[in-house]
């Protein structure tokens, strides 16, 4: 079982998302835990709840396996925002991976904003297996917030 990238169902032909002009379409990466948030995403899908296709889901076994490097790399490669989402406290299949993830996100939130990466671009949420609605709402709100903030600078120039 490796990570799976869920391709957005409706693909638009544009290779580079438009950054200027009519509308800014951000690209978001969501590292979702296999047990809870991924199940919620699945539930949202089967319940036909819609959320913007700006979000690319990367399934991870546990939020605790999200190395800070993944988040840094995602931003440097041009993500406008990164979400890490896993089980509610106490629900983690791996007992405490989500608590460890929380500290790593805290660490990143001390570092990245120093370089102009708005703290709002990095989010950690707990979305349980049956929180299909919350998953869809979170994604919608996140995309909306990022549209307001605008594109991340790293997307405009190669900083990798």
């Amino acid at each position, binding site marked *: 079982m490796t990570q799976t990238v869920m391709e957005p169902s409706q693909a638009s032909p544009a290779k580079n998302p438009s950054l200027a002009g009519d509308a800014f379409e951000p690209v978001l990466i969501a590292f979702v835990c296999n047990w809870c948030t991924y199940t919620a995403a699945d539930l949202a899908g089967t319940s036909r709840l819609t959320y913007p296709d700006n979000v690319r889901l990367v399934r991870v076994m546990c939020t605790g396996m999200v190395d800070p490097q993944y988040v840094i790399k995602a931003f440097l490669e041009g993500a406008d925002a990164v979400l890490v989402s896993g089980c509610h406290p106490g629900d983690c299949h791996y007992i405490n991976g989500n608590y460890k993830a929380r500290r790593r996100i805290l660490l990143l939130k001390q*570092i990245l904003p120093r*370089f102009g990466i708005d703290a709002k671009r990095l989010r950690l949420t707990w979305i349980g297996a049956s929180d299909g609605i919350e998953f869809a709402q979170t994604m919608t709100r996140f995309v909306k917030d990022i549209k307001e903030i605008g594109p991340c600078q790293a997307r405009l120039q190669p900083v990798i």
Partner: protein
Amino acid sequence: MIASIQTKNQSITRTLQDFFADLLKTGAVDAVLVPSRISKSPYVKPCLITSADQMDQTVPLGPGFFVNAGPMVSRLTRTRADATIGVWLRPCEVRAFVELTKLRQGGRQDVIILSMDCPMALSRKDYEDWAAQGEGGLGDVDKWIHTVYQKPVTKADAWPVARACQVCESPYPVNADVSVMLMGADLDKEIPVRADTEKGEKLLAALDLTDNGQEPAQRKAMLADLTADRTAAFQAMDEEMLVRTGSIDALNRFFSACVNCYNCRSVCPVCYCKECVFNTDAVAYAPAQYLSWADKWGQVPMPNDTVFFHLTRLAHIGCTCVGCGQCTLACPSQIPVADLFISVTRNVRKAFDYVPGRDDAEALPLSVFQESEFTDIVGMGNKEVT
């Protein structure tokens, strides 16, 4: 216990050299680790000395600081040494060693840590100039010592100390077995030495030292003044860094001279990895990926992953950076790496309420957790820490 060591020949260097020699002679330790000149060059390196008559080339206090000795002590203690080693460390070296013990890269069992009010350091260029002015290929060490311990200074003997030292807020021993309290002392007369642990007590007792000294009257106030100055200096540096690296674009410019030589990493005392992840296949990309990046932005600089490397290193040593400034000293491109790392990691420390080197028992922030903590960084709200 605080003992007083009489100054010999009005030379602190000489007094300390004799002190180390006595440690060996009395058998209080089997070896000492003290900075020493290499082949009479101006450059000093920590040397492991077992012979009491090898002390004349040692420079216990001086502005030369080209290796953080923390990792050297870790090498000496990674497994049991079956010997007692006295190690003479600057405060930031003690901090580095403490962090390394938490990372199981060494242990305290076989070492006795002797530390001092910090003599500070010069940048490589300044050091070379300073050394060139003295006799015998070395600057006037005792003059340096007299200057730095007489009043709070960021400049000593007319030389501006390294930026890392200018902003160091703990230039005094913490977590050592023996603390040498130089600040404010009447150095022509005596050096007050304090035992902070049982080991330290034993060591001083072995030299027949008694509890006849006291902390220099002005020391606390002087250290407080010094710390206040440095806090101000740190704030100035922090603001400068915010300007110089406060956006992705600025950061990119800041590191534009970086050539991925990884010197900063090599000299970093808390970059303890046997092999850096940037030397592994994790960052070996296929040609197509380079082309795809170039395609994305129209160009891609090579070598790439320079900013990625530094940000990753910030994440890795965010909690453990001891602020010794070796990275800046080592950078061939004169990038003030330490300035950036010190400003950013100060943020991280605050968030985790963690100070590297402060306490052996303090767990590494990323190795522990509590069920109910940092709840405000979770969720989509606006309460999160920025």
